[in-house]
């Protein structure tokens, strides 16, 4: 089975974020970056399928030069090769434009299965996978927790709201968006890191792919959210704050 895994590099989860000079995006200068967590689960799903059924896992990422570190990490974890679409200014591409960029690199690979995380931790649109499926003409299912390969088709377990699930069957090729917690994530081994150095990374540009940027949705401004509630922040040592809280809960909120 030939599996393509789309992954995005995003600011590390515990980053302290500041608005950048333009006011339209964050200041990225002092940030650490990592593989978008749901995409890391998509990679894990792809690697497990390959281990069970054979084939190849190809990772694809569109992003600036720094994204090469995340691509390497995916190779070190066991992906066979990678496609890195180098784009220094991802902000020029809306969801549809970015999906077109990815689709134009994925289509010639003729994959059996395309996997992405269900959403990115930065923009959080949660759409790239579904739009890709439409552009590639593939059936899809979202928020997937399990994948079982059948003969020429797959059976997946999809998560729904309020603790409900559903199985869905569909023919291959298909696209799935993977939920965080699909399975335990593996770490790259020393051997894996060593091997990754010799694996193929194909670098492409938007121009080579014949794609041009589009911005049908524009971010006008990013800012810290206003509090919807009056929050009282309790100051002091651990002991002091604990004492204050108990006092507030007993006599203020009267819940104790």
């Amino acid at each position, binding site marked *: 089975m030939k599996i393509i895994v789309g992954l995005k590099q995003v*600011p590390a989860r515990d980053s302290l974020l500041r608005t950048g000079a333009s006011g339209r995006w964050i200041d990225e200068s002092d940030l650490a970056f990592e593989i978008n967590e749901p995409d890391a689960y998509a990679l894990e799903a792809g690697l497990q399928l390959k281990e069970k059924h054979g084939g190849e896992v190809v990772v694809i990422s569109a992003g600036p030069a720094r994204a090469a570190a995340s691509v390497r990490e995916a190779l070190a974890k066991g992906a066979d090769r990678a496609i890195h679409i180098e784009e220094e200014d991802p902000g020029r591409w809306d969801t549809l434009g970015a999906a077109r960029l990815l689709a134009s690199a994925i289509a010639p690979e003729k994959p059996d299965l395309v996997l992405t995380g269900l959403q990115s931790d930065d923009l959080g649109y*949660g759409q790239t996978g579904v739009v890709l499926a439409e*552009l590639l003409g593939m059936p899809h299912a979202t928020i997937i927790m399990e994948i079982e390969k059948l003969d020429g088709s797959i059976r997946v377990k999809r*998560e729904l709201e309020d603790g409900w699930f559903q199985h869905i069957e569909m023919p291959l090729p298909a696209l799935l968006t993977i939920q965080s917690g699909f399975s335990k994530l593996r770490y790259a081994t020393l051997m894996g890191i060593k091997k990754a150095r010799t694996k193929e990374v194909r670098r492409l540009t938007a121009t080579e792919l014949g794609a041009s940027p589009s911005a049908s949705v*524009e971010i006008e401004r*990013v800012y810290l959210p206003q509090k919807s509630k009056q929050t009282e922040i309790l100051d002091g040592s651990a002991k002091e704050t604990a004492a204050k809280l108990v006092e507030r809960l007993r006599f203020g909120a009267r819940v104790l």
Partner: protein
Amino acid sequence: MSILVILEQREGNWHRMSFETLAAAGRIGRDLSLPVSAAVAGKEVAGLAGSLSGPKLEKIYAVEHALLEPYTPDGCTKALEQLIRHAGPALVLLPHTYRVRDFAPKLATRFERVLVSDVVAHKIEEGRPVFVRQLFQGKLNADVRFTTPAPNFASIQAGAYRADAEGERGAPVETFRPELSESDIRTQPKDLFRESQQGVDLSSAGMIVSVGRGIRERANIAIVEQLAKELGAELAASRPICDNGWLPMERQVGSSGQTVAPKLYVAVGISGAIQHLVGMKGSKTIVAINKDPEAPIFEVADYGIVGDLFEVVPALVDELRKAKA
């Protein structure tokens, strides 16, 4: 030109977010002086459509076809694409449900549009809508606007708009029959199921102590368990804790777990991603303990302690014991 709201139903029951999206459309429609219509898709939905109440609607489309049930992204997209071409709305609003996340990006792509998903508020600038949505798991907000002509697409986050308590009824129902064939539908959905009988009903708990990623290791959960015991509270968790198997799935609070509204909710080491917040923000009193002062959980908290949970939680247990003595 009008606003078209796509409502969601399953087996003749409305998804509650349908009403929140109707309320959002009512307000946006008033602000932009646009009439509002609604649509619901299914096998036989004209009766359900006729029972709808909410803001004043110009029309309710009952999009009917046997192949629309059970739901599939292929069938739903093709039917709604035809409806939108027929109705010609300026703006299509959808509830940001799991189902909408499954088909709406595909639907918008049919019109070469980008869905602005998970909207929490709107404002009007120069006669055009600007939508507010969250970035970075709720750490930042962004104002976004469309640069494309009609139709544009946006989905509304759970709880962002309050559904109208009462409303108007009796908007005319127009049945719309899309062209669909079996070959359009490539996926085969099976029956819905639940993993286990939910043994723990967190929704009836008076107090909940909930633990998140900040706990770092499974063994550390005992610290938070101690606090729950001292309070006589149920122990719950955010998704990553249950994903790791550190607590059973039935103790998960959030969009994929249980929705709770106890009189006291103590969030320990939970950053407050929106998927968690939608499951607990109705709690009467919310306490947040987190080391990151910018964690979104503080936005919904009544009392916040910015600090190391490994120091604060044991201190809290001590103080509670003292208060009891």
